[in-house]
């Protein structure tokens, strides 16, 4: 058997997981605010370090994970995630608790992921979208935001505002978004209202 070099996980799993979780928690608590992630990971491309940190902090054998075609096309990514988290990687988007999306522009419709049920709205997917930069151009309102706040990220789907409006309209059902990249994470929970800035 040939030797396979596996990219390292967290240097200090306990505290790195805690710090990454806290970044995700504050990101969802204060939508639009970018929380720094310093994980020091070097995952296989096209997985970025921030998204990898979120998966390593939040996923384990209980959380089916779905990879978008760009990530699924690189077997090293699945090997890396499977090795470090033990999460089952599923082919059906609807079965996933977490979904990793490297190319948000071409991503599936939000409705293709688990929305939860009226009795259990928590049984819904969390989508981790890899972004290159946090920009501006959107305005957010809702729980966690004192009034309104400016936000933006790239790349995002062309119909992002319409998608988020539909997601909000389905509240308490819907998906929650974590946008990961550029050294940080931003959260867009289903409770947020996204408008053009």
């Amino acid at each position, binding site marked *: 058997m040939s030797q396979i070099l596996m990219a390292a996980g967290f240097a200090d*799993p306990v505290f790195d997981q805690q710090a990454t*979780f806290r970044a995700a*928690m504050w990101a969802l608590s*204060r939508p639009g605010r970018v929380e720094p992630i310093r994980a020091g990971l070097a995952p296989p491309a096209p997985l970025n370090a921030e998204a990898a940190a979120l998966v390593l*902090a*939040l996923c384990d054998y209980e959380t089916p994970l779905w990879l978008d075609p760009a990530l699924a096309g690189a077997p090293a990514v699945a090997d890396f995630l499977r090795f470090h988290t033990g999460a089952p990687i599923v082919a059906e988007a609807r079965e996933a608790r977490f979904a990793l999306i490297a190319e948000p522009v071409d991503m599936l419709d939000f409705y293709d992921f688990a929305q939860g049920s009226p009795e259990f709205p928590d049984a819904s997917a969390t989508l981790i979208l890899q972004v290159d930069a946090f920009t501006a151009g959107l305005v957010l309102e809702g729980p966690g935001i004192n009034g309104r706040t400016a936000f933006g990220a790239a790349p995002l789907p062309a119909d992002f505002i319409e998608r988020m409006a539909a997601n909000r309209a389905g509240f308490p059902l819907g998906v929650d978004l974590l946008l990961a990249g550029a050294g940080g994470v931003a959260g867009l929970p289903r409770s947020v209202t996204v408008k053009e800035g």
Partner: protein
Amino acid sequence: MNAHATGAMPEITYNFAYLDEQTKRMIRRAILKAIAVPGYQVPFAAREMPMPYGWGTGGVQVTAAVLGPDDVLKVIDQGADDTTNAVAIRGFFEKTARVATTTSAREATVIQTRHRIPETPLTENQILVYQVPIPEPLRFLEPRETETRQLHALAEYGLMHVKLYEDIARHGHIATTYAYPVEVAGRYVMDPSPIPKFDNPKLDDCPALQLFGAGREKRIYAIPPFTRVRSLDFEDHPFRVQRFAQPCALCAATGVYLDEVILDDKGGRMFVCSDTDYCNERQEAGHRGEMAGEAGRASPSPQPSPLRGEGADGALNLSPTGKGRPEGPGEGTWGVPTTPSSAGDPGSARAAPSGMTK
């Protein structure tokens, strides 16, 4: 993972903050969903903790899941830092997580609370963790979980309004004084845990993140910062909080929640701040209530005093932290009397509440 091995002698060590990492991830995922759906009770696989149900097992698990090595932890029980429940939980995290602890609401980054919200306004970098006995606000109206789940799914909260209406029909006013139901972000009706309704206005638009943990009932829910939280009421019977006729006897604070302390068996009583940290801070700043004694005598005692309200040196020496509260500190159930009026002295002929007006 975080074991501190020391030579030959085996030392009992814990993973950071007691819980194993898989448990923490499970709780953390529940917390994220709770934040995304404000006021909705997320089921989680609560673990057995080394303390009985009712002593804050839910709050402890939430705290353990969010806590990091740089956090400064404060634990309060009915506003006090030095009661059994607060001391025990603070000691638990000092031992298992080695985090810094404080009694100051300003210095803390994580505050675990049983049944009070600090008087000191919270900031947006703080996390307030509530210990919750019964998370389901509709439970005493509808005992079946399958039914209450349906009622939440349909946002069918008529039952709760009927209950409040029956209060009015019977007592002439809404007689619910603690665990007063609230509507979060215009959708879910939520039990704010048995805080006095005096604290309800602090839930609304609070800059801090508020997390609620119910260990026995296995539920976690949350209020994100700056979220609209409305106490249920009627147009002709608007929500009102308790008012106190007199200021704190030790620090002269007004507009704060006061505990009634029985001083003797002849009807003597005093009203002092329920929030010991707030009261101490005010006394240090020179505020003196009518029973505080001369400066320097009734100096605030941040440490638990062995006298603890025994009044061995005369009643005026009562430390603000030893309030002689009648109920046991750990009986974390819904039935704990939380209003001064319910803490009347049974031995007194003048047990009628006198300090509180509607």
